[in-house]
């Protein structure tokens, strides 16, 4: 248990240096800060050819769009004689007021602000005698175009997906949710990466307490760099205590916006082509995005099937072990005879055989995922068909075990959330071991512990088993997709300001 606790002993303090850049706001200060940075550039220019009035521009090559800087900043500086002829204060006021053509301009008074702006793709303009510098936003827009989602394909619905650029993502959300109540608040995460993380919510729907909790969580993240999803997910929730995902992620803006409209709080981060929705509850992990596009009866049947598949993927190997090893009377006689006939020359015990196959299944899956899709598919086919068949023919495993493990694996693939499926796979191993130890007694104990664990879980103050266990809703609402005109209330567990979602 000690291994699962955060290490606290012997850890030195980790104070932040505020401000990061000391010293007056001068070109020399910036040169010192960006010393040994080959991409840092300083450009001096005379105002309309007057060497007495020289301005200095600082920027980072590659971060600033040079054509725009040359056209809209340098050209007016070099050619606009009114700037040269005006007194310095007047010229400064004109440059800040529009003589230089840029929509986003800020005045900076500290070297810390200026340095951060330069990193974000701003061009800093020093004007002799001015009390501050002008910071023009001129970042390059090298980014991937919006494309169809890879992991959440949509057969009937929007085909856009989040990209790595945060502003593009917020704009995608804005296009889906045009309500002015959509609020976006930004936090900077990562001491070294300084990654902008945006928190989005609908102010007229979301629970303010939930918004506060999410903000506090994001603000409390003090890491070096936010570069991967794990950097964010594991800090958003107390993830160490469970394998089940506690925040929902999606790469589809329509699903993200539907979550916001339900009263959830969204999180988008620079560099991550997906959005998180808080809280993540069990009911959401068994729902596929296209469920709402399908006929309600079909979607309900599919959701019920997924619920059955949860039991299938969790319990099939364990129940097989329990039945074959401990409760042989449960097996229909003809099936028992078939299993005996098929297993007669297999040298391994049933428990070992099942665990071996479960492990082989995981290895095959992992191998398939790590390889390019075409090779991965080949590996899966070779592993599944060729090696599987050969193993059965060589009497290394019995066909019944192969069928049970394959059926459990396929049942797991019906989960729309791969994180949820992975957690189920982990528990599948545990239940199989318990079944090998004590038969159905062990399975029941394991299942009871699982239910207790899930019942104790909360995601941002909302019970994880919502809507199956939370008050105000029946479990049927979670397992069925009722006709949308009938669903007039948002989930009670989310404590939204306004529960009614339609007339």
């Amino acid at each position, binding site marked *: 248990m000690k291994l699962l606790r955060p290490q606290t002993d012997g850890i030195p303090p980790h104070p932040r240096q505020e401000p990061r850049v000391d010293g007056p706001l001068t070109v020399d200060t910036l040169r010192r800060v960006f010393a040994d940075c080959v991409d840092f550039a300083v450009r001096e220019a005379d105002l309309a050819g007057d060497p007495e009035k020289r301005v200095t521009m600082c920027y980072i090559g590659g971060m600033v769009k040079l054509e725009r800087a040359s056209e809209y900043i340098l050209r007016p500086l070099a050619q606009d004689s009114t700037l040269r002829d005006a007194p310095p204060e007047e010229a400064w006021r004109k440059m800040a007021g529009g003589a230089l053509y840029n929509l986003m301009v800020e005045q900076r008074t500290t070297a810390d602000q200026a340095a951060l702006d330069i990193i974000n793709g701003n061009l800093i303009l020093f004007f002799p005698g001015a009390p501050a510098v002008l910071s023009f936003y001129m970042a390059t827009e090298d980014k991937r175009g919006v494309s169809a989602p890879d992991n959440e394909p949509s057969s009937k619905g929007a085909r856009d997906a989040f990209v790595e650029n945060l502003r593009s993502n917020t704009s995608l959300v804005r296009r889906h949710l045009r309500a002015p109540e959509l609020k976006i608040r930004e936090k900077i995460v990562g001491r070294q990466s300084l990654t902008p993380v945006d928190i989005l919510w609908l102010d007229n729907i979301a629970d303010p307490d939930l918004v506060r909790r999410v903000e506090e969580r994001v603000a409390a993240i003090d890491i070096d760099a936010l570069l991967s999803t794990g950097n964010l997910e594991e800090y958003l929730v107390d993830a160490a205590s469970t394998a089940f995902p506690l925040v929902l992620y999606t790469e589809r803006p329509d699903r993200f916006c539907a979550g916001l409209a339900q009263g959830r709080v969204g999180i988008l981060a620079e560099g991550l082509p997906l959005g998180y929705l808080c809280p993540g509850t069990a009911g959401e992990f068994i729902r596929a995005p296209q469920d709402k596009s399908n006929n309600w009866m079909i979607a309900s049947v599919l959701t019920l099937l997924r619920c059955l598949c949860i039991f299938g993927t969790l319990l099939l190997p364990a129940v097989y072990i329990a039945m*074959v*090893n*401990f*409760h*042989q*009377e449960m*097996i229909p*006689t003809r099936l*028992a*005879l*078939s*299993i*005996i*006939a098929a*297993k*007669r020359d*297999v040298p391994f*015990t*049933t428990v070992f055989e099942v665990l071996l196959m479960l492990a082989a299944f995981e290895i095959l899956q992992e191998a398939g995922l790590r390889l390019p899709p075409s090779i991965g598919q080949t590996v899966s086919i070779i592993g599944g068909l060729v090696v599987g068949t050969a193993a059965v023919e060589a009497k290394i495993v019995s066909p019944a075990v192969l069928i049970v493990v394959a059926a459990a694996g396929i049942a797991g693939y019906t989960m729309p959330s791969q994180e949820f499926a992975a957690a189920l796979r982990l528990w599948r191993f545990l239940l199989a071991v318990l079944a*090998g*130890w*004590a*038969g*159905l*007694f*062990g399975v029941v104990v394991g299942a009871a512990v699982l239910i*207790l664990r899930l019942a*104790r879980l909360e995601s941002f103050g909302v019970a994880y088993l919502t809507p199956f266990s939370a008050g105000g809703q029946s479990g049927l609402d979670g397992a069925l997709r009722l006709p949308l005109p009938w669903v007039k209330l948002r989930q009670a567990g989310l404590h939204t300001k306004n529960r009614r979602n339609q007339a």
Partner: protein
Amino acid sequence: MKRAFAAMLLAVLCLPLAGCGVQSALPEGRELENMALIRTLGVDEAEEGVMVTAASAQQSGGEQPALVYSHTAGTVSAACLAMQSRGSAYLFYGHVGELLSGEELAAAGLEEALGYVERDIEMRLDTKFYVVRGGKASDAIAALSASGESAAERLEAMAEDAGLMAASMPRTVGELLADTARCGATFAPALTLTGEEGDCDLAADGYALLKDSALIGFAEGGAALGVNLLLGRVEADVVECPTEGGTAALRVVGAQTKISPTFENGVLTGLTVQCAVDASVAQGPENLDLEHSPEKQKSLETALAQTERERIVAALTLLQTLDADCLDLCRRAGMSAPWRWAALQDQWGEAFSTLPMRVEVTASIRRGYDVK
């Protein structure tokens, strides 16, 4: 977390209070492939107690013959346990589908054999029970195994065909125990060994009638068919009735029987059995045209009703002669007159053997399949 851990620890510490030792707290695991699934169990009377014969299913998916073990001991349990030492496989009795009893043991009493099924953790109450008429269960099992067919398969086939043959219906140990506990008597299908040695077969042979778990007689022929009619369990039976131009074969496809008591001044004075039989024409002479000859239909229905009545009367007479309500007629009569239930229960035991029975049978031929 600490509280949950403490609760779990407390639960584990409380386990010994459940009366289970450490060894027996968890089930004992056995690999299925190391087992021989016993499908048929035969019990016979022996000098030392009982002789138990156990037959497994055919081994290796039917490639090898069924295993047959036999042992004599004081009790069925002891014999079954002793048989475990035979062979390498563990004999598993959880899949016993048929329990056979020899006639001698049945006559001496079946309490022990039925009690073993009731109490043993592996045996099932839905095990079908048969009495081997005029023979021993071990002979029947050995004969079938020698013929290359497993006893279980033959008996299962017979149970499936029982309705079609109208010869007997399968009964489970659970039903026998429930009947015996309720009214002290019951019935079970009887089998008889047919054919020469080496080419033996089992055939249904009516019903064994049991009272206080001991065999008191057999219902055979018409009486056995009467039992089916009284219970309303007729899936198919062919009755041949003479008619103009030949013989008509009528297939009886259903029967509904109502039994009601007659009381006079609070005294049970009789029992009325009303049976409605449904039949179809299975075969008949060329000129049999029921659609245009209602008289012919009426005549056939009357003949059929007469035949079925005789069968019912034969069954009832046998039961009265043996003074055993093997078909639980008392409860069925009580269900048709629940307000008389207390009186019926009080008087039934003494009155049953001499109770006047009025049997009314109506027959209807639903489908004539006339050739146009």
